[in-house]
Structures are given as structure tokens and as C-alpha cells.
């Protein structure tokens, strides 16, 4: 069992290393096969470990990584219910994405590099998921950051891709800084970095420290999960290949923040203030991203903002003290968002590498299969009743409603509004894509079969994801909450209220659909209003950050360069050199290049020595 557990992260690592070292020399199909096989093997290993996850879970220490005084960091794996469900999701979805990528990257010359990075990405994510201490987790955390940098800027020959990769790297680094500080603080307090030890001793901390550490962890999570205010990298990260977008936005990177908060939940939940902040961040990001998604023209940016929005819901769930709701939404979202991204990839391919939805339309006629699959994903996203997304979102909103106090009611209101907007932009996307006639010019392209195969499976999972945690209302037994041993996450509200909330959710969904139906049924080029522009640019956030941070920073750097480096240091050095030079000029007459003169100098020196001895002798 231990070996099987160790295999989960090792297989992708191995696949990644093989591809990194020899990939370019292997035949292309073999390279792809190794990558897919590694992740698939990891998935099977996770399945094999599954029985051991119940209760306390599996634990194993592979080796001691760092040892310094009382500090020791082991490479240890922890396979408890939370990690198990997460690992299963990650490996499962990643397997499908790898399969899809094998089709998608068929013609790319850098296929080996791609698969190497992709496998390493999965490895890093699994390290986060399975780590039993915070330092190892941080290692995976950084690995994810690095791989995402490499993958987003995969086609680095185009400057904007490289810039997007850099932006993702730098912005997530800011979050990582918070995480690092929190990590060190925790170590300073507890003398250990083991997750379980910290969680079990969290109550020893005084409230202020606890709140601060929780907020630091939240900062780290925000960076990774693209939450307010560190969200600006995610829309730009669409520069990478579509499978990367699917991997980052559906299965792995963005959920790492949620996972971190769930992991450290025993600690975080002790601080009511931090919980409130988390809930606020979540709901505000959800609302912000939904509004932005309304105005986007690029299909993948719409999906990116929707991801941000849905991850916001997950944060909200954590902030509402409901880990199971967060994980529930995380899982369903992973399925349908992976489906949506991969479907988007298919659509882009079908439209002849056209990203702009204004240039698409009538895609239904190009491929019925893709239409139905993509529609399934959109329905899940919009929260159509009885789909997975409907149940998970509803659970979060109901939990907020169930708290009953004005603060949470306000959050509930904003959440419902966001749900409406979500429905609206989902159907906007659907109408723009599938209704009417094709508006672009490109000839249709062939779609590799490998790109279609994973989709039905994901559609099935997304549509039926609700079964994972089917509420009692529908005859379910809330399996996920039970698995995670979070029985108190179950709703404690009257039955009527529950029906009411379901009704509200369904109504909101319908309302969004109707508005979209009337607004976008026929395509009209009327998207240039100020408000739209504002949303299109993501509330001008980039400009805002540019003005707030980047420009002052540039100024500071410029000052350091001009004043500090050129003025002070170079001035000193050059001044010294200039002084030497002038001295040299002053005494250059001594060196007239003639040997006689130099020899005469020797003679004077000799005279000096002899004279000195003479003086000594006289004395």
C-alpha cells in the first residue's frame, strides 16, 4: 500500500523526467504515450490506495529531506479522505486532459517539452495534495508555479505569451511570499511543520496571531487561486495551449488555494475574522469575475473569468465553515470546467484557430457532438437544475442563507445575483457560439478523434456530479460530507426554506437564460459601450495595478539605477579611477620611456640604501 502511495507522485515525475531528458529523441507517439501512461498509472495507483484513505488515512515517510537542528523536513505522504478525493480528481481529470493533449499537440514540434512540463505539473500538484508537511507542500506549490510559467509561455516565441507566463509567475509569487511568511511563523510557533501537528495544536495560539497567520495563508491561496486582489494573471494565462488552460483552471493550480485552506481548515476556522474575510474575498471575486465574463470576446477568457468566479464560490464555502461544500463544488467544477475548456479547444480548432466568439457562430452545424457536450458543460456552469453545478452551488448559497445573520444574508444575496449573471454569460456564450451563421473566414479544420474521446466522460461526470453529495431532500445521503467526516456541514434549515432556496436558484437560472435569449439570440455588434469596455478590461484592474504598483516600482527602480547605481556607486568608482588617471597624468613625466632614466632611479634607490647603512654605522 505504501509503495502504491509513493507511486502516485513518482509516476508523473518519472514520466516528466524521461520526457525532459530523452523526449526529443523518442518517437512522438511514444513520448505522448509515456506522459499519458504515467498519469494514468498514477490514477490507478490512487484508486488502489483508495480503501486505505478512510478514517485516519495512510501515512508514509519516504526519506528525510532536510535536517538541521530541531528542524527536519521529511518527504512524507499523507493520504487522508481529503487528500484522497483531491488526488483522485487531479489524477483522473489530468489523465483525460493528457489524452486530449495527445491529440491537441499532435503537430507541435515541442511536444516532448510540453509533456515533460505537463507531467511535472501533475507531479507538483500531487505533491501539494499528498504532502504531510507544509514545506513539502510549499515545494509542490512552487513547482506548480514554475510549471505553469513554463506552460503558459509555452509558445514563447510570441512576446505576449512570454509576458503572460511571466505575469502569472510574478503575481503568484506575491501570494507565495505570504504563504512563506505564514509557514515560517507557524514553524517558529510550533517548532514543526507537520500539517497534522499544526492543526491539532492550533488552539494554543492567541487569537491575533491565529488571525494573522490565517490571513497570510489566505494571501497565499489568493495568489494561487486568482482571487481578489491577485487575480489579474488568470485571464492572461489563456495564452498557453488549451490543455494547459484546462489543467490549470479545472483540475489543479487554481484549486490549490482552496485545497490549502481546506487542509489548514482546523487552524483557519478558529479565527472568525479570517473566516469572514475569506467569505468576503470569495463572494466578491465571484461577483467581480462574473461581471467581467459578461463582456469578454475571447472564448477562453470567458471561461477563465468563470473559473475565477467559481473558485470564488469555493472560497465562500470555506469562509462559511463548510469544507464539504467547497470540495463538492471543487469536484463538480473540475469536471465541467475541464469539459468546457477542452470543448472550447475543439471549437477553436473547428473555427480555424479563431478565439473571438464574435467571429464564430453557427458552430452547431460544424459538430453536433461538440455542441451537445459543450452545452452540457455550460448547463452545469449556469447551474441548470439537477446538474452537478446546480447542487454544489446551491449547497454553498443555502449554507450562507442558513447562517441567518445580516452579513451572511448579504453574502447570500450577492451570491444569488452572481448566479444569475453566471447563467446570463453562460447562455450569452452559448448563443454567440452556436446560434446564427459562422462569421469568420477560416475554413473548418479537422478534429483529431483523441480530442473528442475524453469529453463524454467528463460531461457525464459533470452532469451527474450532484450524486456525490446529493442532499436528503432528493433522497441522497450526502456521501461526500460523510466521507470527509464533516457531518455538521449538513444543512440545518427547515424543509420549506430549502424548497424556497431551490426555487430561487432555478428562477435565477431561468431569468439569466431568458435575458440571454432575448439579448443574444440574434448576433448584433453592439458591444462597445463604456460599461462593456469596463467589464472587458476586468474593471480596469490591470491599469489600476499598473498605476498603483508597477509605475511607482518602475520609478523606484529608475531612481535606484540612476541615483544609486550610476550616481553613487559608479560615481565613486569612476571618481576614484579619474583621480588615479589625473595622478597618472601629473606624474607621467617621470616615465619618459628611456631606460637611462629608470636606471638612474635604481641608482638613487641604491644610494638611499647605502646612505641608510652609513647613517646606522655612524650612529
Amino acid at each position, binding site marked *: 500500500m505504501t509503495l502504491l502511495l509513493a507511486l502516485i507522485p513518482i509516476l508523473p515525475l518519472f514520466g516528466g523526467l524521461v520526457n525532459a531528458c530523452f523526449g526529443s529523441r523518442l518517437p512522438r507517439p511514444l513520448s505522448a504515450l509515456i506522459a499519458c501512461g504515467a498519469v494514468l498509472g498514477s490514477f490507478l495507483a490512487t484508486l488502489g490506495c483508495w480503501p486505505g484513505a478512510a478514517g485516519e488515512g495512510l501515512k508514509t515517510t519516504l526519506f528525510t529531506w532536510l535536517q538541521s537542528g530541531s528542524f527536519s523536513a521529511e518527504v512524507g505522504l499523507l493520504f487522508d479522505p481529503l487528500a484522497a478525493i483531491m488526488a483522485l480528481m487531479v489524477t483522473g481529470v489530468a489523465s483525460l486532459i493528457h489524452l486530449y493533449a495527445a491529440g491537441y499537440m499532435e503537430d507541435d514540434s515541442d511536444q516532448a517539452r510540453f509533456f515533460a512540463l505537463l507531467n511535472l505539473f501533475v507531479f507538483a500538484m500531487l505533491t501539494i495534495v499528498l504532502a504531510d508537511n507544509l514545506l513539502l507542500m510549499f515545494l509542490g506549490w512552487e513547482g506548480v508555479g514554475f510549471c505553469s510559467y513554463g506552460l503558459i509561455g509555452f509558445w514563447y516565441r510570441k512576446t505576449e505569451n512570454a509576458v503572460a507566463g511571466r505575469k502569472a509567475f510574478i503575481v503568484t509569487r506575491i501570494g507565495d511570499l505570504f504563504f512563506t511568511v505564514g509557514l515560517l511563523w507557524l514553524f517558529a510557533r510550533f517548532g514543526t511543520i507537520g500539517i497534522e501537528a499544526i492543526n491539532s495544536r492550533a488552539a494554543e495560539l492567541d487569537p491575533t496571531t491565529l488571525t494573522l497567520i490565517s490571513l497570510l495563508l489566505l494571501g497565499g491561496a489568493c495568489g494561487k487561486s486568482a482571487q481578489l486582489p491577485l487575480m489579474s494573471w488568470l485571464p492572461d494565462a489563456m495564452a498557453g495551449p488549451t490543455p494547459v488552460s484546462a489543467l490549470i483552471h479545472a483540475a489543479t493550480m487554481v484549486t490549490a488555494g482552496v485545497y490549502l485552506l481546506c487542509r489548514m481548515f482546523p487552524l483557519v476556522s478558529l479565527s472568525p475574522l479570517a473566516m469572514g474575510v475569506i467569505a468576503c474575498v470569495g463572494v466578491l471575486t465571484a461577483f467581480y469575475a462574473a461581471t467581467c465574463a459578461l463582456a469578454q470576446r475571447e472564448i477562453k477568457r470567458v471561461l477563465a473569468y468563470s473559473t475565477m468566479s467559481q473558485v470564488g464560490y469555493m472560497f465562500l464555502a470555506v469562509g462559511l465553515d463548510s469544507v464539504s461544500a467547497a470540495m463538492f463544488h471543487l469536484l463538480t467544477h473540475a469536471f465541467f470546467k475541464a469539459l468546457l475548456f477542452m470543448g472550447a479547444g475543439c471549437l477553436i480548432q473547428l473555427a480555424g484557430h479563431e478565439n473571438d466568439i464574435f467571429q464564430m457562430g453557427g458552430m452547431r452545424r460544424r459538430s453536433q457532438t461538440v455542441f451537445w457536450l459543450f452545452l452540457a458543460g455550460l448547463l452545469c456552469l449556469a447551474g441548470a437544475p439537477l446538474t452537478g453545478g446546480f447542487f454544489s452551488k446551491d449547497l454553498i448559497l443555502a449554507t450562507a442563507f442558513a447562517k441567518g445573520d445580516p452579513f451572511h444574508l448579504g453574502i447570500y444575496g450577492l451570491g444569488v445575483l452572481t448566479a444569475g449573471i453566471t447563467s446570463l454569460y453562460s447562455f450569452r456564450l452559448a448563443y454567440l457560439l452556436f446560434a446564427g451563421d459562422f462569421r469568420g473566414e477560416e475554413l473548418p479544420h479537422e478534429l483529431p478523434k483523441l480530442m473528442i474521446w475524453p469529453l463524454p466522460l467528463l460531461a457525464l461526470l459533470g452532469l451527474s456530479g450532484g450524486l456525490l453529495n446529493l442532499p436528503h431532500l432528493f433522497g441522497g445521503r450526502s456521501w461526500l460530507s460523510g466521507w470527509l467526516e464533516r457531518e455538521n456541514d449538513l444543512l440545518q434549515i427547515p424543509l420549506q426554506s430549502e424548497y424556497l432556496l431551490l426555487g430561487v436558484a432555478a428562477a435565477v437560472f431561468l431569468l439569466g437564460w431568458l435575458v440571454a435569449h432575448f439579448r443574444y439570440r440574434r448576433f448584433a455588434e453592439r458591444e462597445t459601450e463604456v460599461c462593456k469596455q469596463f467589464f472587458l478590461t476586468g474593471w480596469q484592474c490591470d491599469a489600476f495595478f499598473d498605476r498603483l504598483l508597477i509605475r511607482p516600482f518602475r520609478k523606484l527602480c529608475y531612481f535606484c539605477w540612476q541615483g544609486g547605481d550610476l550616481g553613487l556607486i559608479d560615481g565613486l568608482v569612476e571618481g576614484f579611477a579619474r583621480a588615479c588617471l589625473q595622478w597618472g597624468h601629473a606624474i*607621467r613625466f617621470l*616615465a*619618459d*620611456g*628611456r631606460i637611462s632614466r629608470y636606471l*638612474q632611479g635604481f641608482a638613487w634607490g641604491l644610494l638611499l640604501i647605502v646612505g641608510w647603512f652609513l647613517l646606522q654605522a655612524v650612529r
Partner: protein
Amino acid sequence: MIVPLEHVLILSTILFLLGLVCVLVRRNLIMILIGIEIMLNAVGLLLVGASAFWQQIDGQVMVIFLMAMTSAEVSISLAMVVYLNRRKGTVDVRAFDEMRG
């Protein structure tokens, strides 16, 4: 010892000074080298005299080393004289002032 050590010293000093004069006053590269040879010989005389005075053979050994060193020095410096003469067509030291500061 056939003469007082001081007399050897005086003779050697005179020779040394003559060599020094040659080095400092002459402007012909070859004459400067000759002056150096004279000075080296003066030192050799001093060493031999000291060797005789203390009846230690080391002084004479030093002279042998001195001679070896001198032959090395002379071969190099004369090769350089040839080289310099090839460049400027003269052996007057005043012509070689490219290293002027």
C-alpha cells in the same frame, strides 16, 4: 688569504661603480649591457673574496649560479637587442621611448 678582505671589497666596489657609470652614462644598448656584466663580475669577485675569507665554498657556488644567470640574461637581452635593432635600425636607447607615459 693573500690580501685583506677590505682590499677585495675596495676592488670590487670600484668595478661595480665603473659598471654603474657605464650603465648610467652610455646610450648604446650594448654598452649598457656591458656595464651590467661589469657589475655582475664585481659581485662575483666579492663572492669569491668572501668565500676565501671564510673558507666556505658557498660563495664560489654562488658565482657559478651568477654566471648561469648572466648567460641566460645575456642571451635574452642580446636577442632583444637584435629585435629592437630590426625595428628601429639603431641601438640608441633614446630611440626606444614608446613606453613614455
